[in-house]
Structures are given as structure tokens and as C-alpha cells.
């Protein structure tokens, strides 16, 4: 028995156990929590955050950090909505071009982000934080602070159309998750993320172009941010600067709570899925049992500290900066 209780196994499965414990706890507190309808609500709320979290997962595995998601989401959402409306505003016309265009904008945003980080040798947190502000400013410039309504019923069917009680967007998100998993486990770039995060010096000495890996990482993250933006617009039917609001905290919290290590090399997209679910189950569960919103934020903050504390092997760290 004891060989299953190793630190490694515990770290690996702890997030899932926490998720199960939370579900049991909230179900016991209020039986309404454990219903298909409520689960559909949780997954639907989690969909945009899951996309953002998948993007940042790759960055964190590389040992970098990206804080630009709120700006990136705002730009992608606004560009999408503007283009969508100007091309007709319904999906069964040329307006569909706005969908891939949003993904391209996301990847360009990530490309600039990565280049600023790598070429100008600016630490990733600073480069991406600044780029995030640039994105916020850019989206404000484009909208003039207005909200853009996207009311095309076909596009909104992502939310309104349900299959087996879950809205369509949940299935698309599942597909994106599988793509992320494929990138992580089956592609060269995915393996490179782990190599750079696990030993940058060694990756370099093995002939990897580390800078290129980093830039591509930021681009892939940008595409997932764009997906997140599309789902966010589909969910509320509005594109605006505030579309990305609060996603930075939620997504980084989710990745970390899911067990991906902040110093890189460890973790993956399944950890992120579990992390996103934990965060959303807490948010939903607290509403169900009737606690105010500010308590949720506090609880999430404490949860992050706990997760990082539990996942760090402190013996190997002399100093923490």
C-alpha cells in the first residue's frame, strides 16, 4: 500500500481528489448541486476559462509566464465582432471569415508577445503584462468603449443549442482540449516545451532553438486565447474591452491548482482541466450554498497558495525570488 502513497503519486492525483472532495462537499451541503442542469451550468461557465488556461499551460510548462490574456481576449473579441458584423453579421455568409480571422489575430498577438520577450530579452512576465495593457488599449480604441452585440442565432447556437443537456460550446471546448493534448503529447513542439521547462541549458546544448520554441509557445497560447474570446462572445452575445475581465486570475489559478509547476517542466492539459473544474465548482458551489462573491475570491487566493505550497519540493529550492 505504502508504495502508492509516495509523494509523487500524491502530487499527481491530489488535484483530482480535491475536485471529487469538493463535489461531495457541495452535494452534501445542497442536493441541488448534484444535477445535470447545474453541471451544464458549471461547464458552460468554465468554457472560456478552459481555453485561456490551456494556452497558459504551455507557457508555464516552458517555465515562462504570460499575463497578456485579458488584453489578447479583448482584442480578439472586438476584432471578431467588428469583422463579423461588417461582413453581414450572420454565420451562413462571408461573415464566417471572422472566426479564423480571430484565431489569426490571437496568434499574431502571441507572436509579438514572444518576440518582445525573446528578441528584446525582457522577462516574460513583464513583456506579456505590457502587451496585455497594449491589447486593452487597442480594444478600447476600436470600440470607443462601446459594446458590440453579436446576435446571429447560428453563432449563438453555441450557447442555445443543447446536445444531451450540454450546450454545443462545451463539445467544441472538449475538441480544443483534445487538440491541446495532441500538441502536448504527440508533437515535436509539445515535447520541446517540456525540454525547455525541464532544462533550458540542456535543450540549448542538444541543438534546440530555444528562442523559436518560446515564440511558437506564445503563438499557440494566443490561438487558445482567441478561442476563449470566441466562446466568451458566444456565451454573452457581447464583445467589448471587458470581455477578458478577470480571466488572468482565473486561468493562472486554474493551471496552478491543477498541479502544473510554476517553474516549468511538470504538468499538462489534463491537470489544467481538473484545475479549471475545481475553480468553477468552487465558484458555483458557493453560490449554490449562498455565500457572497468576495468570499469566493478569498477562497481561491488561499487555494493557490496551498496548491503551490503542496506542489513545491522545498528541499531543492535554496532561495525563492
Amino acid at each position, binding site marked *: 500500500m505504502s508504495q502508492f502513497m509516495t509523494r509523487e503519486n500524491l502530487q499527481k492525483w491530489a488535484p483530482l481528489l480535491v475536485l471529487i472532495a469538493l463535489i461531495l462537499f457541495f452535494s452534501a451541503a445542497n442536493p441541488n448541486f448534484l444535477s445535470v442542469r447545474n453541471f451544464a451550468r458549471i461547464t458552460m461557465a468554465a468554457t472560456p476559462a478552459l481555453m485561456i488556461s490551456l494556452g497558459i499551460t504551455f507557457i508555464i510548462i516552458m517555465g515562462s509566464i504570460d499575463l497578456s490574456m485579458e488584453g489578447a481576449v479583448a482584442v480578439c473579441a472586438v476584432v471578431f465582432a467588428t469583422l463579423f458584423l461588417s461582413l453581414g453579421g450572420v454565420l451562413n455568409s462571408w461573415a464566417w471569415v471572422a472566426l479564423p480571422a480571430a484565431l489569426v489575430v490571437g496568434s499574431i498577438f502571441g507572436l509579438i508577445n514572444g518576440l518582445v520577450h525573446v528578441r528584446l530579452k525582457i522577462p516574460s512576465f513583464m513583456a506579456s503584462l505590457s502587451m496585455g495593457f497594449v491589447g486593452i488599449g487597442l480594444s478600447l480604441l476600436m470600440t470607443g468603449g462601446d459594446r458590440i452585440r453579436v446576435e446571429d442565432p447560428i453563432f449563438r447556437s453555441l450557447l442555445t443549442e443543447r446536445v444531451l443537456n450540454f450546450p454545443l460550446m462545451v463539445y467544441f471546448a472538449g475538441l480544443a482540449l483534445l487538440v491541446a493534448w495532441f500538441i502536448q503529447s*504527440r*508533437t*515535436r513542439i509539445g*515535447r520541446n516545451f517540456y525540454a525547455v521547462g*525541464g*532544462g533550458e541549458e540542456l*535543450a540549448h*546544448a542538444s*541543438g534546440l532553438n530555444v528562442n523559436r520554441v518560446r515564440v511558437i509557445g506564445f503563438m499557440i497560447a494566443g490561438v487558445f486565447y482567441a478561442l476563449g474570446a470566441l466562446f466568451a462572445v458566444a456565451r454573452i452575445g457581447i464583445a467589448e474591452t471587458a470581455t477578458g475581465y478577470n480571466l488572468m486570475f482565473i486561468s493562472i489559478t486554474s493551471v496552478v491548482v491543477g498541479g502544473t509547476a510554476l517553474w516549468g517542466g*511538470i504538468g499538462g492539459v489534463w491537470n489544467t482541466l481538473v484545475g479549471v473544474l475545481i475553480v468553477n465548482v468552487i465558484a458555483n458551489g458557493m453560490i449554490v450554498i449562498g455565500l457572497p462573491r468576495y468570499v469566493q475570491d478569498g477562497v481561491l487566493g488561499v487555494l493557490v497558495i496551498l496548491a503551490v505550497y503542496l506542489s513545491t519540493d522545498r528541499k531543492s529550492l535554496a532561495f525563492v525570488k
Partner: protein
Amino acid sequence: MFELQKVDKVFPGVHALKAVDFEIKRGEIVGLVGENGAGKSTLMKIIYGAYQHDGGQVLVDGKAVRFRSPRQAMDMGVGMVFQEQSLIPNLTVMENIFLGFEKQFVNFGVIDWKAMAEAARHQLNKVKLDISPSTTTSQLSFAQRQLIELAKVLTLEERVQGDLVILLDEPTSVLAKEEIELLFELVRDLRSRASFIFVSHRLDEVTDLSDRIYVMKDGEVVDVVNADDANIDSIQREMVGRNINKEYYREEQQSPFDTSKVLLELDSVNLDSRYRDISLKLHAGEVLCLVGTEGSGREAILRTIYGLQRPDCGRVAINGHSMTRFSARKGVEVGVAYVPRERKIEGIVAGMSVFENMTLSQMGNYAKAGVLDIGKERALAREWIGKLSIKASSENADCGNLSGGNQQKVVLAKWRSGGSDIILLDHPTRGLDIGAKEDVYVMVREMSEAGIGIILVADTLEEAIGLSHTIAVIKDGEIQKRYDCQPGSKPSLYDLIQYMI
């Protein structure tokens, strides 16, 4: 006044010090010499409190003491001037001198900078250094920083009762000739204040400066000579006198290399400050050993060949093609493999599995349009696990959990399976136990048999002599002497060491 009696130190698997007797009198300068791994640094660490002895006694003025930390040793008057400079570059000179001892200048939590500057000036006078105590340390030359290290240790004079013992660990290795002269003069002047233990690879300097010299070998003091009757030749002989076991290094498996096929050629390659005018050829199947002391330029040459460091001038040709771009990527591409000294840092990615580590440098061969063929990767890993008898539960095992020898094998498998035909081995046996070392020797012979050219920086001289076809002795960045090492007519340790130091 300071004495070690029958001091023993045991590490797991290594008896690092065996009943060492050591004594230093007031105002004396004592030299300490020995090969790498002879036990010098362990002995020093016990003296300045970084290690504790397992047996025997450390006596200060006849009283037995035990230093639990360098701080305690300092309180008893023992200070260390470090070889790697231990000053913090962004602090000022005075802050460095009194780092950790600022309390004497603090009133109600506020530092009295004037008093500290005054005290620092007093220390700088002792080492005859005329600079402002508020200079930022990074602006100073190496020689000046060395003197500040010394000044820092000399603050012990005011702090402790009794006599000082100051250890100088290779203080001359980064200094120019005139600077060395100045340092020696200063040390001689300071004898009235302290006794010195002087550790150096350069025997001429040791005999010049010291009163007595301790010669160490294999964890023992083999001789103590007075500097007046010291003979550099005889000291060298004592440092290396050991029997070599031919079978241990698989000498009988050494076969001649292919002189017609030149894999690598260096032609008058220079890198300012690291090495000068290096010319050499590496043939298929040849084991070429670069021999020299630490800092002689061996590592820099390896890094240049691998592409990590661009030389200032000269030609590097690999398989007949002159290299114009220097990058690790290019090095890998043309078939150069580098097995670095620190496996944990540069050899394997801990956390990645055996098969992931093996294909790290050659993922292009296992991917189509960026998508990996993991089945093929696993098959490769299984093949090499069998070939090199790597002890891993499977190809999925985390490389970080393998033993040092097996990590080494994974690194070698990574390069060999990728088709590298020039392999640079930097201390491949460092930190391995005897059995694992022998495995590495067998692998070197096999690779040589397979027509791979190997450049080796060996852990010991015996290893270099035993394994190599050719030896180039390097001192101060220049090749001093080349030896042909056919089995039966190999050079002796003494032949090599006289050109090394």
C-alpha cells in the same frame, strides 16, 4: 598553534582523508600541493569549518576544537580566501568587507556609513589597496577583488583574540605575473599578522612563497619538505606515484585508429584569454585526450568545437568543411556530440523519460510535420537500453531517478543513436563508482572501434593515459607537448605532469 592530528574524513564510498597530520606555526606560510582528488580541498574545508572531521583532532593552541560552521572557524581566527571570488558584485567594497558583521556600525537599526568607511579604509590599508571604500565591487579588476577578499579575512584581526590562520585557495590562477609578485610580497609582509596556508597547482610558486610544503596523495600526506631543500621534480613524483592497472582501462582493447580519415581539424585557433594557437587533428576511431590543470583551457576548446563559443581566429573544420557559424544547433547538425561534466545540469532533463531524453537532440528524425512517432522513439530507446545495459525499469522511466552511471549511458545513447561521429567527453567518470567507470571505459573502446572520434578530458591522469591514442598537454591555453600512446609505450604520469605545471 594550529594543528590537525590524525584527522579522518569519510564520505559514502570514499575515504577522503586518512590520518592526516598537519601543523602550522605562528607567522608561517605553509604550502599544500597534490593532484585533483588528492584530498586538498577536503582538508581545507575541515580547516575552515565547512566540513567536520570524523576522526582525529583539530587543535587550536593545544585545545581540541570542532568547527560546526565557517562562522565558528572565523571566531577562532581561521579565514578563507576563496578561489571563486565570493564578493557580491553589486555591493560596495565596504559592504562586502563587513558583510554579515555590520552590527558593530549599527545604532538603533541605522548603519553609520562613515564609521564603516573608516574601518574599511583601515582594512584596505593592510592590503595596500588605495581605493574608495564606497566603490561598487563590480568595477574592480580581478586582482583588486582578490585583495579585497584578503582584506575581508583580515578583519578577523580586530574581531578575534589570538592568532590568525588564512587559507589561500589558488589565489594566483586569475592573476597576471606582476600581480602575483605583488600578492606574494603582501603575503610575506602580512606574516606578522597571520599564518598562511597556500594552495596552488603551480609548484614553482609554492616553493617560492612557502616555508614548508605538505604533499598530498590519495587522501594522505605523503611528505613534508622544507622549501629550502624542496626539489620540484621529486615533489611531482610524490604527487603522482601510483601503479596503473592496464586491464582497468581496457588497454588490450585499444586498436589503432584510421589515420586516413580526419574527422576534425583545428588550425591555429585562438580565443583571446582562454587558449592560443591550438592546432590538432582527430581521426576516425581515435581517442584524443586533452590534459591540463583546471582552467588550462581544455573546457574552452571543447566548447569551441561543439559550437558554444566562437573563436577569435583560426580554422575549425569538421569532416573537411570549415565551420563558419558557431552554435550548438550547428554542432549537432554536423555530428558533434558533447557530454558535459554536470550531468544533472546539462546532460539529461530530469522529469522527462528515458526515451524522451534520447531523442531530444534528434526529434526531427522521429517526427513528420511536427507530429512525433512515439512508437519509433520507444523502439529506439528499448534497443539502446539493451545495447548499453542501462538499468531502467523501462523506456518510460523518469531519467532523474536513474543512477549517475545510467544517466551517463542515456546521454551517450542519445548522441550515438543520432549518428554523431565526434564525441566530446568532459570528465565522463566524475562522481561514478568503480563499476560504472569501467562501463564507461568499455563504451569508449566500443565507440573507438566503431570509428567514432573521441576527445576526452579525463578525470585523472591515469585515465587519460590508459584510454587515449594521443595526448595533448595544455598549459595556460597552449599545447605544450603531444604524446603518442600506443599500448606498451605510453607516457608516464611524470612525463605529463612536468608539462602541466
